[in-house]
């Protein structure tokens, strides 16, 4: 317990990087994911095929491999990018694939008759989407969206492996000095738990608030 208090400041610093990277990644991943989902549902086939290939790769390759690819390959290509920014970018691109699945599923879950009803009222294109489809899709997307957010928070722990000072990395450093893995990693896990559990409580609230009774 003392270990955690003595290193409270360090842990807080790690947690703030974890939170910042999570928030940024969630924002970018959600935006990209929504765009991919709309492409998958509406775009012409060449664009759709391109997105499909992208999603296939992202779903089949570990995040760690992509992070290392970035970490090794970018300097090689002469690109000088700060590792935190690079990390956010890779995490966003990786989880955008999962976000796209969330949004695509939600859009397709809006019953066909709702689309038809909108069309019967003379709506089409973006009017149909913004007035009829998306408001309903958002409700179904809530719980899986939160789940993906939790995966992103947990996923940021991987940046510790490429040397960023996030919560996990701070934990490892403290353990090297103090040789108290149980309390340190226990404490680190607890901080992650609070972040993620808070997210899942929000998710549950949304589900109750907006969930349809089937």
């Amino acid at each position: 317990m003392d270990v955690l208090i003595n290193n409270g400041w360090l842990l807080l610093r790690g947690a703030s990087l974890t939170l910042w990277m999570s928030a940024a990644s969630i924002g970018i991943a959600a935006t990209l994911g929504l765009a991919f989902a709309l492409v998958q549902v509406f775009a012409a086939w060449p664009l759709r095929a391109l997105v499909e290939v992208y999603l296939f790769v992202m779903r089949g390759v570990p995040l760690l491999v992509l992070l290392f690819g970035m970490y090794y390959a970018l300097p090689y290509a002469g690109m000088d990018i700060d590792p935190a920014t690079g990390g956010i970018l890779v995490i966003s691109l990786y989880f955008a694939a999962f976000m796209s699945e969330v949004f695509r599923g939600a859009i397709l879950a809006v019953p066909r008759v709702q689309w038809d009803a909108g069309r019967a009222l003379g709506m089409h294109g973006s009017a149909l989407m913004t007035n009829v489809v998306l408001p309903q899709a958002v409700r179904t997307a809530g719980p899986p969206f939160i789940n993906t957010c939790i995966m992103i928070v947990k996923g940021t722990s991987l940046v510790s492996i490429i040397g960023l000072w996030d919560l996990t990395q701070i934990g490892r450093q403290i353990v090297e000095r103090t040789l108290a893995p149980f309390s340190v990693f226990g404490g680190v896990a607890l901080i992650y738990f609070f972040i993620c559990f808070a997210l899942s409580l929000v998710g549950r609230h949304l589900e109750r608030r907006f969930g349809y009774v089937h």
Partner: protein
Amino acid sequence: MIDVNLIERNLPLFFEGLKVTLLLSALAFACALLVGLVLVLARLAKVRLLPAAAAAFVELMRNTPVLVQMYFIFFGSAVMGWPLTGFTAGLIALAAQNGAYLCEIYRAGIGSVSRRQAEAGLALGMLQRQAFFIVVLPQALRKVIPPIANQGVMLIKDTALVSTLSVMELMYQARLIADRTAAVYEVFFTLALFYLAITSAFTLAMRVLEWRLRVAE
């Protein structure tokens, strides 16, 4: 620009790593399936505290990074004087985390089997336990093969994390080769292909399984 010869020369090392990755994936997946089943039985048990304890474990596992769990087990076991290998520590963490997710998947599947099915079993004279294992569970498992397959893919990808515990699986071998040859593009491209091949083969196998066990509807 891509040096095919270099990849070819190092293929044996990749295959060494592949063996470890496959072994860890298979063991962890089997354990996770079992852990998930035990957890869901505990969650549905009509014994006091057991469902709450199982639910707490599931929440704990699902809301903490598997990497931190691995460190906790690996470094923790070392201080305890019972050092586990990186492989074993990784196996335990992967089984626990994915077991927790599978528990929730099973639970959704069980909930989706109509109450009438269990009733039909009871009416034939089955005990609750028999109706669950003979009638409800087999139907639930068939329904949740697709989400189980997704979870399996996540597990396979997470095996790459044990490279940080010096387990000589695919990721670890690739990093060694990259450090030695500086052929960064070649190595990571090949590595990605290996993972794509494993996850695709696994997904395909699960599709076949789903097709063969499908409940004709």
